[in-house]
């Protein structure tokens, strides 16, 4: 099992390389369509043409496009993502601080969304044909009609403004000194240093954005799990298990649920990828210092080095999630790990 999982991961990584090359080339070309001049925007008004030319050369923007791309790729290979035009800092450094924050947010949001979704799906299945199912179904339809970023605003309105019980700005209360980063993941770092005050504050700050993200995932997980359970329960092997006198609860848990999990896992993989997209606006709205916030700032300021680097990081994350889901799928589906 574990050897096959490693093989799969290895193959996934190999396949990811051409995809990432295509993705980076795509991003590079799109960004060079840009009508506005990022250099001009980053200089104070009244800067001389010579100043602008100098800066352009400094960022390598005066070279032909393929040359720029190859140079960028070469630097990328050595871990050099360039310098932000707007922040005037190393892009790698910017990403290194922002990435753990985003990963922490997505991990909590995804866990919450999947937990709620699975619980809801099981409840819908248990109440099939009854009013409870209809109510949950309508609830899901309602939740899905509001995108994550609007949930973010509504949650702030509810729990930050109307009934101010939750913090909604940043990762940590301003009165708590940020401990020296160990991993960059606040929840882990605080536990490692036994700083429960930091842990509590970080968790409280994560709550609203994570809920906003979870609402985007939970209804979908719920519906897919419910409908796969309804499909699976009609399968011959479920009927045959019942005909062997296996109690209904065992039939559902042992025979139906494991088979119904397969399409649900695929869906969670796709949704986890989308969730990284969802973090962009949610982070911006909660002033949460993650990749999304960095991306929005970069987009507003036409900060090309940051945009293309962060865009690429998002793609790496999505491909990583896909690989992880594949391994999980492998663990649940014996058909993939055993030769027929």
């Amino acid at each position, binding site marked *: 099992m574990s050897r096959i999982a490693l093989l799969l991961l290895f193959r996934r990584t190999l396949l990811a390389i051409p995809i990432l090359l295509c993705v980076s080339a795509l991003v590079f070309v799109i960004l060079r369509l840009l009508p506005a001049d990022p250099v001009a925007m980053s200089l104070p008004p009244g800067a001389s043409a010579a100043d602008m030319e100098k800066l352009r050369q400094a960022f390598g923007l005066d070279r032909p496009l393929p040359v720029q791309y190859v140079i960028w790729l070469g630097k990328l290979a050595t871990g050099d993502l360039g310098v932000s035009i707007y922040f005037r800092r190393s892009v790698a450094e910017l990403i290194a601080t922002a990435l753990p924050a985003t990963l922490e947010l997505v991990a909590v949001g995804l866990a919450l969304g999947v937990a709620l979704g699975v619980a809801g799906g099981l409840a819908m299945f248990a109440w099939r044909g009854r009013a409870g199912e209809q109510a949950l179904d309508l609830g899901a339809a309602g939740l899905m009609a509001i995108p994550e970023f609007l949930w973010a605003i509504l949650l702030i309105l509810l729990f930050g403004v109307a009934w101010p019980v939750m913090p909604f700005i940043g990762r940590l209360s301003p009165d708590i000194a940020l401990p020296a980063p160990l991993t960059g993941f606040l929840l882990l770092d605080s536990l490692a240093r036994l700083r429960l005050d930091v842990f509590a504050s970080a968790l409280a700050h994560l709550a609203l954005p994570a809920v906003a993200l979870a609402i985007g995932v939970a209804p979908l997980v719920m519906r897919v799990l419910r409908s796969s359970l309804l499909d699976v329960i009609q399968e011959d092997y479920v*009927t045959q298990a019942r005909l062997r006198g296996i109690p209904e609860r065992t039939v559902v848990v042992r025979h139906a649920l494991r088979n119904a999990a397969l399409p649900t896992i695929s869906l969670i993989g796709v949704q986890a990828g989308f969730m990284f997209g969802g973090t962009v606006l949610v982070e911006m709205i909660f002033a949460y210092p993650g990749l999304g916030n960095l991306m929005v700032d970069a987009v507003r300021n036409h900060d090309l080095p940051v945009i293309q680097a962060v865009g690429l990081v998002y793609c790496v994350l999505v491909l990583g999630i896909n690989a992880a889901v594949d391994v999980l799928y492998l663990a649940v589906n014996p058909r993939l790990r055993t030769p027929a």
Partner: protein
Amino acid sequence: MDVLEARGLEVSFGAAKVLRDVSFTLRRGRVLGLVGESGAGKSMLGRVIARNLPEGFAVTGGALSFLGQDLVTIADEPRRQLLGDKIAFIPQEPLTALNPVMTVGRQFDEHLARLGAPRAGRRERAIAALAELRLRDPASLLERYPFQLSGGMCQRVLIAMAFASGPALIVADEPTTALDVSTQAHIVQIVRALQRDHGTTLLFITHDLRLASHVCDDILVLYAGEVVERGPAREVCAAPRHPYTRALLAANPPLDGAARRLVTLPDTMPGLAAFASLPGCRFAPRCPVKDPACAAATPPLRDIAPGRAVRCTEACLTGAAAIVDAAPPRPPAPPPGETVLALETVSKHYPGERDWLGRRRPGVDAVKPLDLTVRAGEFVGVVGESGSGKSTLAKLVMGLEAATGGRIAVDGKDVTVNDPAARRVRLGALQMVFQDPQSALNPRRPVSRLITQAMEAGDGRWSEAERVARARALLEETGLSPDLLGRYPSQLSGGQKQRVNIARALCVTPRLLVADEIVSGLDVSVQAQILNLLLDLRRERGIGLVFISHDLAVVRYLCDRVVVMRHGEVVESGDTDTVFAAPRHPYTRALLAAVPPEDPDRPWPPEPGPAA
């Protein structure tokens, strides 16, 4: 002692009585066959026992008791206790009846645990149970997943599980229908041996009267939800009394003896919706000897001899005897014309697909180099089990797949490469009738546009009136009413769909039809209608036929020449009568031996081969 007893059992769907007045007793250690075509209601009984009736169906009268316990009124929990323990089931589709994500061992273990076996000896018990079925290396079998096993192996595992509890009753619903003929013979042999050894009572549900005559002690023949005939299996098959039983046997082509034209009944069995308009004998509308009284009131099931009962009047019974005797001999084959199709060393290799790790699986030689010529007016049968490459052969002939080697000629012109010119030659001379009319008929086209679809092709310069005229002619030729012109496939019966399928192939007046398993999904009586239609088409049009089938009896009835295929290779070919009378290749002999013979007194199934 009676294990299962039904008294006036009635199952309804709304106002329609799906089972009407079903009564029988099944004594300990006996095998009762429940025989009927699809829609006869034969599966309902098993579903009543398991309380697994489809939605909207309910038991509305009578009683069904198991060892004195009423199964209709029993509460859910005690019924669950009976299932798997005292009453076991052998399913129809073995491949889907085992959970795909659990090993065979886990499922067997779960079953033994449910029977209350202590954990310690369960593995040994499972191994012993599988060994009893002559499955090779049962210990390693336990580690495998269902998708790694063949259908026959899955079925053996399920049979072992069914017998594990030493049940009083086993319900086997079409346990061999999804399997190849040779596997079917093995499975039947195993079930019979276990049943005899354990003294188990067996309820054997099947559509195949001939199979039932060899497996069962007694038979109930069901028609449209009613028992029409009941009696000892051999007697019922050797001397059927009810006109339906007679017709059913006469519609089934034999493997030996003189070929007579098959006797066919008009139309098909009435469905649920028609039951309300049939207050009397439900067979009356199709009965060749019916009497006006039959349509008004159902005749009772009356005893005519010890252990034998028939639901028919005395007058009808005497008249029915005439049906079979009246059958004329099968029309002789006309002298064949010029060669239409010629295959020279044609082969097809499929490269293996890549798996998720990117490793290429080994490829398959679906068809190994093969020669075949078919002349106008000639009927050639291609026989083989699943995986023999017979369907690939049809696709190669029709140009739906490209051959990897060899040469295909139609009317002497090379059509190996399916370019537009070859396509014109090929499609002018050859047409195909597909296996599954459900899949072959576009549900969005009415019959008139389906059968004249070829007139739409290219620039489509036919007027609407010309199309309708052609459609009418084709319907008439295939024995369909012109009322069907505006119908859609979903509104047709299985037999009607297959006739439409044939009519479509006839639209371009081909000289050769390629028919891939076109009667395998049909009931015997409808199958007989289609076979006779094909013979009539030869007489009227001089058409030739490549008939691909797994059913040897059907091929014997229809074809002048036969080609036996196995693993993509032709193992034997020749004149049909010669091959069937004196098969040379052991595989042909094994295939023939696996078919239940017409004579119920001939011992069958044959002694089993080596363990799988």
